[in-house]
């Protein structure tokens, strides 16, 4: 009866909830240290600004287009729009492709050559050729983001369906189900948890690649904003931009987790 | 014939798929103008040319050497700091409570978003590039070793305790070996992340490295140079990954049958 051992371990970390004050204190210490480093100018004002100035900078950026020529919200919307288009396209194409590749060996043989060639090359390495092919506009960036998000979707859907419990496949076969019916009724549902993992990874990849693309060639977006912040030695703009990128990335992942939880609870995926 | 296939089938599939890819590329390059998509042969000639004449003052191999040096320094530092921190956070509740708030603040920021501030702090030279690769690899190393430690089977810890093992023995003799598989997964992911970050850093501002080559190709509008760079990046990346998989199989023999 492993019940007792799991409970002991869970209690070990759960009862620690009342020790959250340690986290609170350590976070305060971190901010304090940061404030003091700037106060005593251990790192110069042109390289680092204290948290207080970052907060001020954040509210300013919501109203002031300087120095990069657009409000924070505008950059954020531009980045989100671009990342999500690439991400959604990758999911819509990548997930079904991964599922079919995992289930039907013939499909796998057909797609494998192209896929294995793309995979080892990091998405960021595609930026130059994409810009050469599609110019520095939105299309090139969307293509790069699509590529970045596409690979994890395919890999995880492929792995997910190949890890289907063989006993359940036999359950369908014994009742005389066709291969496609077994794919639809057993393969796909059991792959769903891994598909969601893949979507989270590809969302992360899309968001990372977006920043890279905006650093290199963009006229708007959070990546462009922090690059301008560097060119104009405005560490407050850079840090605000970085925190915004981090926050939005985390927010999108959190939303995806909620969708998965609701989806799984309705289908009780263990 | 069938025994031949069975014996070499492990190699046949990758070779077959590579040959099919080359064919696909050749056909595609025929009906598209060369400066958009050069044929495999043109890229091969470019590779030969580049390996003789230096680009921006450094030979092709020199560029790869620069990139690898940056990746390796950052990777080793990330493992040296990230691995112990991750294991400790997973094992000790207090340490987890102290570090995780700061870690959770920095974790969602993609390593590439650190490039501007890194250049501001450490200039365009080696320092900022190594720092960016370090950030990327470090976060992944901490995460994988932390998760590995938290998912160690409590039964193994209790087995050790039943023999009177003290906490130090439980940690070193049982917990760490038990999460070796996730540590190796972390090491492999950290290296591939470092490899990606060095590209980004070099593309934003560098005079050497594979990232520089593909940006140079873009600036000179020479697609064949870009493709040479991309193929190099793909090959070196895969070699690094294969190297680590070999190391894992050597260091964890018990896993070889299971894997």
């Amino acid at each position, binding site marked *: 009866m492993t019940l007792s051992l799991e409970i002991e371990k869970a209690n070990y970390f759960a009862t620690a909830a009342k020790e959250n004050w340690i986290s609170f204190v350590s976070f305060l210490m971190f901010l304090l240290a940061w404030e003091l480093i700037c106060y005593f100018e251990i790192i110069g004002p042109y390289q680092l600004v204290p948290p207080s100035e970052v907060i001020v900078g954040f509210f300013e950026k919501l109203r002031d287009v300087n120095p990069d020529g657009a409000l924070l919200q505008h950059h954020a919307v531009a980045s989100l729009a671009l990342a999500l288009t690439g991400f959604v396209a990758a999911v819509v194409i990548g997930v079904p492709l991964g599922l079919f590749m995992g289930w039907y060996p013939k499909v796998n043989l057909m797609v494998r050559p192209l896929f294995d060639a793309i995979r080892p090359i990091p998405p960021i390495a595609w930026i130059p050729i994409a810009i050469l092919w599609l110019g520095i506009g939105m299309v090139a960036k969307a293509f790069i983001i699509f590529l970045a998000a596409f690979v994890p979707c395919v890999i995880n859907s492929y792995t997910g369906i190949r890890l289907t419990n063989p006993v359940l496949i036999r359950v369908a076969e*014994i*009742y*005389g189900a066709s291969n496609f019916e077994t794919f639809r*009724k057993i393969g796909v*549902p*059991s792959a769903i948890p891994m598909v969601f993992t893949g979507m989270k990874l590809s969302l992360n990849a899309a968001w990372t690649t977006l920043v890279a693309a905006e650093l290199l060639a963009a006229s708007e977006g959070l990546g462009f904003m922090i690059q301008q912040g560097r060119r104009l030695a405005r560490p407050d703009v850079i840090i605000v931009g970085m925190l915004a990128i981090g926050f939005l990335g985390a927010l999108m992942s959190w939303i995806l987790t909620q969708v998965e939880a609701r989806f799984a609870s309705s289908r*009780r995926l263990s | 014939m069938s025994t031949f296939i069975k014996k070499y089938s492990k190699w046949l599939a990758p070779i077959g798929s590579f040959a099919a890819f080359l064919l696909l590329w050749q056909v595609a390059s025929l009906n598209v103008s060369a400066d958009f998509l050069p044929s495999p042969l043109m890229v091969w000639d470019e590779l030969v040319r580049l390996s003789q004449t230096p680009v921006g003052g450094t030979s092709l191999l020199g560029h790869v050497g620069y990139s690898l040096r940056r990746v390796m320094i950052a990777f080793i530092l990330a493992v040296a700091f990230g691995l112990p921190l991750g294991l400790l956070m997973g094992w000790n509740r207090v340490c987890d409570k102290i570090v995780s708030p700061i870690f959770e603040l920095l974790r969602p920021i993609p390593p590439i978003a650190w490039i501007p501030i890194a250049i501001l702090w450490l200039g365009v030279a080696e320092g900022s590039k190594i720092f960016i690769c370090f950030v990327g690899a470090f976060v992944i190393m901490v995460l994988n070793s932390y998760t590995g430690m938290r998912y160690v089977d409590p039964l193994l810890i209790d087995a050790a305790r039943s023999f009177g093992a003290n906490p130090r023995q439980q940690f070193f003799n049982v917990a760490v070996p038990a999460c070796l598989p996730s540590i190796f997964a972390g090491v492999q992911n950290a290296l591939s992340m470092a490899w990606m970050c060095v590209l980004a850093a070099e593309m934003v501002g560098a005079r050497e490295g594979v990232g520089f080559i593909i940006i140079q190709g873009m600036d000179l509008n020479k697609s064949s140079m870009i493709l040479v760079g991309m193929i190099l990046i793909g090959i070196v990346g895969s070699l690094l990954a294969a190297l680590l998989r070999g190391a894992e199989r050597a260091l964890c023999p018990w896993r070889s049958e299971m894997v």
Partner: protein
Amino acid sequence: MTADNKSAYKAKREVKVSVKNLTKKYGDLLVLDNINFDIYKGELLCIVGPTGCGKTTFLNCLSRFIPITEGTIDVDGVPADPHIHNIAFVFQEVSAIPWLTVEDNIRFGLRIKRLPEDEIEKRVERMLDIVGLTKYRTYYPQQLSASMEQRVVIARNFAINPDLLLMDEPYGQLDVKLRYYLEDELMRIWKELGSTVAFITHNIEEAVYLAERILILSPKPSTIKEEVIVDLPHPRQFDDPKFVALRDYVTESIKWW
């Protein structure tokens, strides 16, 4: 075990499944060696063999999951085929589909068989009642105990009114007291629905407790070593001398430990 009680047993029964010189080789490793036997309509046949006698391979051949090297398997005189015949299989591992409720699990096989909806609903209600899970119809498998989950699987398999129900040691991991209870329940369902059941197990006492007839497999390469008729009324007592004699007889034939 005399010859006459075998012929008397077989005289009044109709053959449902007949297996003729079934042989299975993996490469040149012989696993099943020329197995011949029949299963009679509405019979509860138990097949028992020593550990490692190729029981799983035998089952996979019988259920057509893997091709057989030689020999034939006929159901009602026609070569067995899951697409034509109603073959059902209760696996050793619990095989309730995790993302389907109890009632949808039972509907699963019926839907694949493309039965009309009203017939499906009728059978689902009946099976829920027989296994006593009507109260739990909207539960998911993880919310049930292991024994209840196994009963969902049994209900799902009996629901399609199988020509042949194969059961691979379904109660192997359960509490002993629980196993007696579920074995009695299986007997009840089997009598009520009159299905043909082939129950395969390593547990000799379980085989003697359930079976009308027992086939004993030899060690690898396995063949039918012996056939034993169990002419005791159900439910049987494990301390009844005749039961104990039969159990000792079968144990001696298999004993390797």
